[in-house]
């Protein structure tokens, strides 16, 4: 392998993030290798979106650092960051299409703004991108006329417009029915295979996670519990409880069981909060 391939596509180091006095990320580490699909799992509110937004330069860390392609985001100026942003694409949770533009205009936006291509060429590229997500016939429609799943596909086509090296996905299957979820997963896996892009996917839907992941990372209450190949997580999921608190917690999450260390902790938290509230009231 060449030297360039030794540089991780994404490197998160000891990332700490606070909102007010609420610490959301407690020193998170993560490396994503070029070409792999990394799935970050975790319950809602555990900090997945916050972590993702650091990786794409929308949030800046209180401590620690984020590197893309070997350059630290906090050391880049505005133009440097913009140059880097042309090398990755992001699919937001709801698609985040500009509602005032048509589907085709949404996909064409970055091409018009960042390249010198003429209108005809852009038109062809837009059609190719829409074809890749199976939506060529929707080009002239407005985002408001599309279903949730279609909007995400268009969002994906838009993210693909500049032929990115990394694709970031925030909850690609949230709010979709199981069949549409499977289709989107298929799309993600297919794009990774065909285009050789690196993918970072945040999700709490386990079927999706196991369908698309090469490696998986388990985030819990702002801490990284485990990063391992998919097979390791499958083994935990399909194995018996071990008595090890951490492994059992992961196992419960992967299986979606109602009983386990996770629920025990939740009851405990609730108890603490009740006491705190009583103390404040008194």
């Amino acid at each position, binding site marked *: 392998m060449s030297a360039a391939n030794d540089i991780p596509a994404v490197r998160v180091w000891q990332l700490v993030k606070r909102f007010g006095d609420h610490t959301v990320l407690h020193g998170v580490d993560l490396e994503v290798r070029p070409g792999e699909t990394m799935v970050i799992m975790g319950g809602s509110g555990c900090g997945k979106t916050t972590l993702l937004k650091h990786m*794409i330069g929308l949030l800046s860390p209180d401590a620690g650092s984020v590197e893309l392609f070997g350059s630290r985001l906090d050391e880049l100026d505005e133009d440097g960051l913009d140059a880097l*942003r042309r090398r990755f694409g992001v699919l*937001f949770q709801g698609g*985040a299409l500009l*509602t005032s533009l048509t589907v085709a205009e949404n996909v064409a936006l970055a091409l*018009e703004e960042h390249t010198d291509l003429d209108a005809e060429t852009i038109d062809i590229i837009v059609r190719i991108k829409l074809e890749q997500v199976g939506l060529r016939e929707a080009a002239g429609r407005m985002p408001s006329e599309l279903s949730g799943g279609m909007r995400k596909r268009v969002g994906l086509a838009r993210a693909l417009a500049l032929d990115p090296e990394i694709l970031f996905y925030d909850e690609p299957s949230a709010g979709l029915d199981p069949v549409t979820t499977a289709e989107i997963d298929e799309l993600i896996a297919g794009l990774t295979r065909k285009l050789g892009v690196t993918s970072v996917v945040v999700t709490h839907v386990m079927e999706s996670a196991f369908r698309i992941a090469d490696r998986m990372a388990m985030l819990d209450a702002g801490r990284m519990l485990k990063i391992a190949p998919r097979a390791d997580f499958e083994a935990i999921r399909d194995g018996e409880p071990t008595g090890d608190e951490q492994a059992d917690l992961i196992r419960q999450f992967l299986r979606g069981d109602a009983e386990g260390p996770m629920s025990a902790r939740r009851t405990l938290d609730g108890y603490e909060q009740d006491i705190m509230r009583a103390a404040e009231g008194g």
Partner: protein
Amino acid sequence: MASTHRRNAVEFLGAKLLGGLRWAGGLSLLGRETLRWAGRGVVHRRARLRRGTLSAQMVRVGVRSLGVVFVVQSFIGAILALQMAAPLAQWGQESQIPRIVGAAGFRMLGPIITAVVLSGFAGASIAAELGTMVVAEEVEALEVMALNPVRFLVLPRVLATFIMMILLTVIADLILAFGGYAAAWAALGPDVYRGYWDRMRDQLAYMDFFTGLIQGGVFGLLIGLIACFEGLGVRGGAQGVGRATTLTVVYSIVAIGAAALVCTMIFYAFGL
């Protein structure tokens, strides 16, 4: 007890003042960014506004306000004429009515009332639009596509409110003058309405008109900036959007009042 109350009141006022300063600081930062992108757009082809965005924003900002400006300003013109008729009649100076309509209307009521109307229509709708975009992560989507939201969203909207405020002020002045004429014709007799237009032209200085336009432009900039600032600052879903629209109108009206005072002081100091 009384001293704690007083301290609480001082703390409250202090916190309000600090909040106000922070708000004004944020607003002027956005203003500076907008100016920077306007400058970059003049220099770099790459940073220009997309074709059609400015005109679309101007139509959206201006058209809805036009009807209300029409109605309200014709009332104001009539009110000015009628209100000044009695005191001026005491000194036999009814012929000065066109001058009063022009001075009070063109300098102050034309731009101010138009700005209030515009903040209610255009300001509120810009804040709601941008707030909804924030909630739907559209603004972040622009950022990660390396499309600066200030250049892409704020600049065309602020330019549109600026230009449309100036145009609407011209229209408001015309309608005001007609309102005054109509009132004079209907209620005040031939001494007033005969030669109304000639006297208006003779008695008014160009500055009565231009100071109004300058203020209109300032108000337009403020409305656009405040609406964008509040819209882009939305946190927490639909509730946040509703709050931003209300605050936009309230803050705009306060800012319009403050800016009118500052402008008037400057015009006064320079004898304009």
